[in-house]
């Protein structure tokens, strides 16, 4: 009998797995198929005309279906707010520290969460103009991860008033 066997067992780790097939639905499928082609699709809320990116079929504020024509958005935007993350998480495959950002794409009225790359931590700030850095085209799939990260643009900062309502 080994020594360990005589110790009290308090916690037993028993990992379980659950495999499932995820069905994205009509609206999200259109978004994901577009991003496979390198296109970023948003859609307007029929009530207030705000552009949701990505669209998920219904406006969370008004409870209305968003089924109008999609709006193609550029891959540039404004860094609205951010955090420098120094905490590891088992399901985030990024090297620490990394910059988690909320980006307001030009023409969108909702922010997306992503990561900022190719940038000194000291120089990150709110209002920075950024552009998406894409994976090589042959690696594109139906995933937002086709965008590797955002990189700073050599442009003047966006005015605080232009993005403050998105924080």
């Amino acid at each position: 009998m080994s020594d360990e066997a005589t110790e009290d067992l308090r916690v037993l780790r028993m990992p379980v797995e659950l495999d499932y097939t995820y069905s994205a639905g009509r609206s999200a499928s259109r978004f994901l198929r577009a991003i496979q082609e390198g296109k970023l699709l948003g859609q307007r809320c029929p009530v207030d005309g705000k552009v949701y990116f990505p669209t998920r079929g219904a406006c969370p504020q008004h409870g209305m279906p968003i089924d109008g024509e999609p709006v193609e958005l550029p891959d540039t935007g404004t860094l609205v707010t951010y955090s420098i993350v120094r905490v590891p998480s088992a399901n985030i495959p990024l090297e620490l520290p990394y910059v988690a950002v909320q980006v307001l794409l030009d023409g969108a009225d909702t922010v997306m969460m992503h990561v900022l790359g190719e940038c000194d931590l000291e120089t990150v700030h709110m209002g920075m103009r950024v552009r998406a850095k894409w994976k090589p085209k042959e690696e594109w799939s139906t995933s937002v991860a086709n965008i590797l990260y955002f990189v700073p643009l050599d442009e003047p900062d966006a005015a605080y008033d232009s993005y403050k309502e998105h924080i």
Partner: protein
Amino acid sequence: MAELTGVIGIGQTKYAAKRDELSMPGLLREAAERALEDAELTWKDIDAVVIGKAPDMFEGVMMPELFLVDAIGGAYKPMLRVHTAGSVGGSTAIVAASLVQSGVHDRVLTVAFEKQSESNATWALSIALPFSVATVAGAGGYFAPLVRGYIRRSGAPEDTGIRVAVKDREHALKNPLAHLHLEDISFEKVANSPMLWDPIRYLETCPSSDGACAMIFANEKLADRSDKPVAWVHATEMKSEPTMFSGRDQVMPRAILDNAKSLYKKAGIQNPREEIDCAEIYVPFSWFEPMWMEGMLFAPTNEGWKMTYEGATKLGGDLPVNCSGGVLSSNPIGASGMIRFAEAALQVRGMAGEHQVEGAKKALGHAYGGGSQYFSTCIVCSEKP
């Protein structure tokens, strides 16, 4: 007309990183038995049980209420499970109170818990969805950008968060049940602790705790029989909103402002800072104290940090906040909201021990959860309305 309802019993476990001498049922049992002991009742006096906890994925036990029913005396009695993310402890207490207020039951036991040592909350909160890239790394990763937004809009001095962290840990030294007892806590110690999710430092962050909290609510007739002081429920409120919509104010959600207005109206409170003697506010990261001082209308917009700065929120200040040490000193997630309600009740019962606010008559309990989208609050008082 709703039945007047009072808190007649409160039970809390010792909060710690690992209560591995207790099973999950054992943890709940400890809190529930202490609440019965406080109320001088036995299991047969309880008509129904309400249980709450944060996402089941934290411990990986789905619908744990089914196997916990015996431990909390729920067998052959009506039992309800509540889930509203981090605010769940508060909303669970509100559901229990409403069962008495509505006249459905006379005496209800409620318990909320989390056993974080058997879970990985950071993992459970960092799930990858096909529409987004997983970047958040736990609750701190989610809230840090919002804290940055608050600092930007309020112009608060950058050390405000450090002051909150020191204050709550000093309060915790007066609460034997608190998880963290940092005897050598100081401004320098917090300031020099590592940045985890910039601008949130390690010592500005709540711990991961095991623990459970229980409360017993009774109608006026039964509560009047109690030999001990009763905390009368003057008002409760729950408000929520979607996590994401265009133009959503993520820093100061409409749901908390609406919650505060409605709560004070129900409780007949005109000037919350004048009329409320102390508050237990859900502050898992230090900066949420100034933010929720504004959200609960104790301070004008962008001026919540001044209350921290002036020492108003310390024991001895004009509105002591989190005299128990708060979520920053003990965070069994699912229980954390109920602990706020229970500690508010202990204060107006005059039973808070060393962290008692002298002469406290009216207290606020507050909890929030999800992406700052669920809010549950209560006003308890030593006197009937």
